[in-house]
């Protein structure tokens, strides 16, 4: 017995509305409406694009982090990898005759390489992802200082980004739209489709849902994990170059603590840290909620500590409401 197309559409609409992403999205819409009333500036397109630009690097890293968390892992090193990749690119542009675009590729490749090392430690040496990437958090930050200072050992805290064309990635506009926002949207769409419509994408979910079952179904666990950690490293490197381009400088303390924002975005967006569940658009909504909150506190001239507290409350609320909802749905 097959359902009629319209009833199938209804049931799939219903299941869509019941997802965590839908709940978080509603929360975001509510937040935007409330802010629209509270501040006359909030809904100005300039402000909205500012908010979007401020979340772009977090959202781009959240793409990779979602995949890592869906496999049941975690990557604490993204903030440091962001800085190391950007520093390498800045240094190559500043001190060498290398084509600036090649320098960008090398920077992203370096991030990918650091991610690959994470994956290697996790799959081959069998170190827990938390520990392996905690180590990388420290190593990559150290490498950032090393690259900034050069082999001569002069202490530098940043290197200017000298190529305007490269900086356009992070600082440019197309019409009123900041270029990094466009890049964010493109990457989010591509990787959302990738997760849903490619074999490797489905295998990422399988690994986190039940590793043993995935292996027995013929999924190559090592390959899947190496992929997600490398991709996350590459995306962190890319985010680093956008970030440095925006500021026209690559700083040694860039991305400090970003890993926690990225993980928070993914968690708010509905991913389970136990693995097997989570979506990229959920994580993007999570990043958006945090960005809107930050913006709101600035516009309303509220103290910064309240903003920090509010973001913590949102993280806990999002996960708690999900728990409560789950308990409710187990009742019937």
């Amino acid at each position: 017995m097959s359902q009629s197309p319209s009833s199938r559409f209804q049931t799939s609409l219903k299941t869509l509305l019941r997802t965590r992403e839908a709940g978080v999205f509603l929360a975001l819409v509510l937040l935007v409406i409330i802010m629209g009333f509270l501040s006359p500036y909030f809904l100005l397109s300039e402000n909205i694009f500012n908010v979007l630009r401020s979340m772009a690097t977090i959202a781009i890293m959240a793409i990779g982090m979602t995949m890592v968390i869906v496999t049941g892992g975690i990557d604490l090193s993204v903030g440091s990898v962001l800085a190391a990749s950007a520093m390498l690119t800045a240094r190559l542009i500043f001190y060498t005759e290398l084509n600036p675009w090649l320098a960008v590729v090398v920077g992203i490749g370096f991030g990918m390489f650091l991610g690959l090392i994470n994956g290697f430690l996790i799959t081959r040496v069998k170190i827990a992802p938390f520990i392996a990437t905690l180590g990388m958090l420290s190593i990559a930050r150290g490498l950032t200082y090393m690259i900034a200072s050069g082999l001569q050992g002069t202490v530098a805290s940043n290197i200017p980004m000298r190529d305007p064309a490269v900086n356009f990635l992070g600082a440019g506009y197309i019409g009123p739209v900041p270029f990094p926002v466009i890049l964010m949207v493109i990457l989010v769409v591509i990787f959302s489709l990738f997760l849903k419509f490619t074999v490797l994408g489905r295998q990422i979910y399988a690994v986190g849902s039940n590793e043993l079952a995935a292996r027995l179904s013929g999924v190559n666990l090592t390959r899947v994990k190496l992929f997600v950690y490398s991709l996350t490293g590459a995306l962190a490197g890319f985010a680093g170059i956008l970030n440095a381009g925006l500021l026209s400088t690559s700083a040694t303390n860039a991305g400090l603590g970003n890993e926690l924002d990225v993980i928070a975005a993914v968690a708010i967006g509905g991913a389970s840290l136990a693995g097997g569940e989570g979506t990229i658009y959920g994580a993007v909504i999570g990043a958006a909620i945090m960005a809107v909150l930050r913006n709101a506190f600035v516009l309303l001239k509220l103290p910064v500590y309240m903003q920090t507290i509010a973001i913590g409350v949102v993280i806990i609320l999002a996960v708690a409401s999900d728990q409560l909802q789950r308990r409710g749905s187990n009742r019937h």
Partner: protein
Amino acid sequence: MSEQAQPILTVRGISKRFGGVQALKDIHFDVLPGEVHALVGENGAGKSTLMNILGGIVPRDSGEVVFMGREVRFNAPQEAIDAGIAIIHQELAMLPTLSIIDNVFMGRMPARLGWISWGELEKLTQKALARVGLHQVNPYTRVRDLSASQRQLVEIAKALSLNARLLIMDEPNSSLSESETQTLFRVIHELQQDGVSIIFVSHKIEEVLQISQRISVLRDGCNTGTLSQSEATVEKIIQMMVGRELVRDHRRGQQNSGEVLLQVSALSGQGFRDVSFEVRKGEILGFSGLVGAGRSELARAVFGADPVFGGEIRWQGRPVRWNSPADAIRAGVAMVQEDRKVQSLFMKLPILFNMTLATLPAYTRRGWIDYQKAREVSQFLVQKLSIKLGSLDHPVSSLSGGNQQKTILARWLAANPKLLILDEPTHGVDVGAKAEIYQLIRRLAEDGVAIWLISSELPEILTMSDRVAVMCEGRLAAVLERDQADEEKIMAYATGTVSQPAAALL
């Protein structure tokens, strides 16, 4: 059995050693096209190892496997699947957070230029589901929202969609009720007609006899013989499995005169409604019913693990309300949960820890644990229950299923309970350990402990119980005295085809 048919699978002289343990020794057997060939044996007899070798999960040390006319050696699960051998693992081999489609096609999603067509997959999945009688199920349903039997059928649908010529089913009906098992058997018969061969691994000998054309018995890694359906009997198989004759269980004398220990009146909760009954000292009260009838839910609510919506519980005559298991344990109730791996055992922690967890306060002196004493008590219980273990300090995961179950029993016996609730105490336990657990339960009852025995196995309920309570869809359908209870009557109440007048329940 036709002599001229060429076996689809021939196993010659397979041996396998894990460290110091000889898991398999010179195994010979074969499977004919369209045959159901059962593989029985106690836990640790080597069934899983043999399956894993055939499925490419572990390599063999020596011997030869011929499948569909050619010698094969699989180095990865995928190679076996490609060749046409599919293993249906117990439930653990599923992806709970993903849809049926993902589960059916994981590892081999058809993709064009790397892209999956969900519409096509949906159709293929529906076709596969229809073959196992799951026409009504939406292929996008998450597997964790399915019932145990539906999951089992999805696993079979998956194997079928692989075009497997040989299905290996590992304890496929261990968590299925009687009627669900019959559905499974119907599907198996249909597959046989299509020429699919099946290796059926099970503990339930009665059902093995019902479904298989031949039965091979493993003991300590050796094949102790292959019987045809006509020559096999339960006694013969058990003898080949354990190498000795087990005395078949006999019912014990009527024990209905003890004082009432627990009285439940009009109790309602999640999954059950308006249930009234009593348990007396020294009696074994069996709880029968289909899977999902509310038996475990009722027991968990009484034990304080789940909330009670209405009704009354009296313990030794006084009304009580236990809000947590800790309250019930303090009063003298113990409960052995259904799924030992999830609800009871700490698999990575030592046996000693697992055994003493519920009674730790008894081994403390001024707040500090006296390990010497805990060890002595545990050692005593190990002997009393004849648990086979290397050391109390080994993780409980090192034990066989039967010995794990005994470890949980030991945990609760250490607490000297007045009422012992057992939820499927012999689930996944081999026959030898089963007989020992039965004996232990009887001995406890003779010592005055009240036993509340939940079981989906009718023979177990019938041989063990003084009275049999039957639940159907959350209600207590009947409480039968032992001499009135038989399989037909219990099944009639359990399936709701008859109902007992409420007055007769009291």
